[in-house]
């Protein structure tokens, strides 16, 4: 089927995030660190759960009673799909898939704000800037100079802290190296997670932790049947959790 086609060519590096659901406590540190790193403004008073700007949303999920009711947390950033449903729909090329890294980048300065990419994304990983960004007095001085502030009327999303990759590349280049040191490129959410529920790395490197984790049989992708080939993986030792969360369609029974 059309949706099941694998990407025609895989990127040279496949930066991958693995979320260990057994370890996630739902503390929200990942989202807070993400907001600070990426200059995400505080939500205005009038905003709701569905109108704020969030790059890493932590969902509280309860499995149905029939499956032995249990509650857990599922952090969902952009899934960095290798077959992204959003790239092709953007009318003015404001979304780009980087064939070197597999990172799906959103380019706010090109964005028309039509929100078609938001409709196309089954993971609801994007936010629209419904308001102009505003920071409390003094807080603007602490903005990250490596990340542009976005204006009202554009869409934004997680890009695996690509500015950190650029910094790692610059550091490697200055040292005369062709490749970055993996320790130099860690997204803010991974760095901040107190329970080490998040692992990040290049899955093409067989020695990397993420390569080992995605291959051990306890990892799965969200909505894998849609053929989007996400590079965010989830894992749990509980087969019920794995089965429930990896299916397409709503959990029932």
């Amino acid at each position, binding site marked *: *089927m*059309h*949706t*099941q086609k694998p990407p025609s060519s895989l990127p040279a590096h496949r930066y991958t995030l693995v979320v260990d659901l057994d370890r996630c406590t739902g503390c929200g540190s990942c989202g807070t660190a993400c907001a600070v790193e990426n200059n995400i403004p505080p939500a205005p008073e*009038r905003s*709701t759960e*569905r*109108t*704020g700007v969030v790059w890493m949303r932590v*969902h509280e*999920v309860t499995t149905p009673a029939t499956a032995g009711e249990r509650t857990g947390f*599922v952090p*969902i950033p952009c899934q960095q799909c290798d*077959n992204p*449903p959003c790239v*092709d*729909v*953007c*009318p*003015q*090329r404001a979304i780009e898939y980087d064939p070197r890294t597999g990172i799906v980048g959103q380019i706010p300065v*090109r*964005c*028309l*704000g*039509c*929100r*078609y990419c*938001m*409709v*196309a*994304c*089954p*993971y*609801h990983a*994007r*936010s*629209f*800037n*419904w*308001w*102009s960004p505003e920071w409390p007095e003094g807080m603007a001085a602490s903005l990250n100079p490596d990340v542009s502030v976005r204006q*009202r*009327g*554009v*869409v934004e999303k997680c890009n695996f802290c690509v500015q950190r990759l650029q910094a790692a590349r610059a550091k490697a280049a200055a040292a005369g190296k062709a490749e970055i040191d993996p320790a130099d490129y860690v997204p803010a959410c991974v760095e901040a997670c107190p329970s080490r529920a998040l692992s990040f790395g290049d899955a093409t490197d067989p020695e990397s932790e993420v390569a080992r984790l995605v291959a051990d049989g306890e990892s799965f992708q*969200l*909505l894998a*049947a*849609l*053929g*989007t080939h996400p590079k965010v993986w989830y894992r749990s030792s509980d087969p019920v959790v794995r089965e*429930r*969360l*990896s*299916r*397409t*369609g*709503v*959990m029932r029974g």
Partner: protein
Amino acid sequence: MDDTLIGRGLKRTPLPRFLLWLAPWAGLLAFGLYATYLCFAHGLNQTNMDNRFAFGLWIYLDLTVIALGAGAFFTGFLLYILKRTELKAVINSAVVIGFICYSGAVGILMVDVGQPLRAWFTFWHPNVHSMLTEVTFCITLYLGVLAVEYAPLVMKNRRLKEIPGLLVLEHKLHKLMVVFAGIGTLLSFFHQGSLGGLYGVLRGNPFAFREHIFIWPTTFFLFILSAAAVGPSFVLLTTWLVGKVSRKRLVSPEVFQTLGKISGWLLLVYVVLKGIDSLVWINATSPKTGVQVSSFYAHPPFGTWILFAEVVLLGLVPAVLLLSRRVRARTGLLVLAAVMACAGVVLNRYVMTIQTLALPSLPFDSFLSYSPSWQETAAFLAVLGYGVLLYSISFRWLNLFPEERELAAKG
């Protein structure tokens, strides 16, 4: 002044009464313009759309008016390309309706996007893979074609005809009308199709996604066909409605019957193909993504009744009615069938826009609801106000129905 603008042999209501008729529509337009000002000044936080319900009333309106406005291109195609000369009686009105629908849609789109000043990026840096690029190009170009088709109507106004340059230009444009009808048909095929494609290509949404024929999802073809089917019905309806409001005979009953018959045949073909498409979707496309179609209809009020209403009640039934000679011979029944046909496409666009977004996609998602804000509703109503104003002015001072004078003389 007003009398000298009204075509010879045509009777129109006295000017004060006409202005009184315009007043509420102008009020509606002004109210809507205020709402759009709020959206431009303060942003789209004035709407009730959100990160999950990223499309709302306005996109629905765009899809609907563009489908109903298809009468302009399809009547032009039938008249100028297929030489169905009896449709000359309604072509002018169809062009005005088309112009209103398309300009209204483009206007609303400009409010709907977060950065309207960047709209030119789509033309300068287009993503050729995006259905929205195709929609933007074709709608904009077709609006230009409609403006060119509208221009001769204005130039044929009794007073403007006295300007020799305009008369010559009108004559030359008229000779080119077959070319514009052809271009309009081509552009319309693509943008009607691309509007359907907008949803059919959504690989991440098993409710909207459809199998592809070459590079196009089946919704591409279904949107073209459904728009072509209801376009003539909408021309029929508006002509009938204008006749009722103005208390005049504008076209002969045979024209209504021709429009109804064309609409009926196309609607029947559409319903058959829509039925086949639905069966493929139910039995193959959706199950392959791990979703049973029944789950899409498990969220009230979106039960299976909506599919039945779309395909049978407001698809097959009006098609059969429109194809019946006895029904077509009775204007009341013909109009009812045309209303049902239009309602079917209005419902289809609603399902594609609203149900697609309301349905959950992640295993732990919930069914979403959305209701438009007053600003969204006001902007929607502004298009209605603008449409009635422009049509009323065109009806008064332009010759929209060439048979009207002759029919009036006959009494």
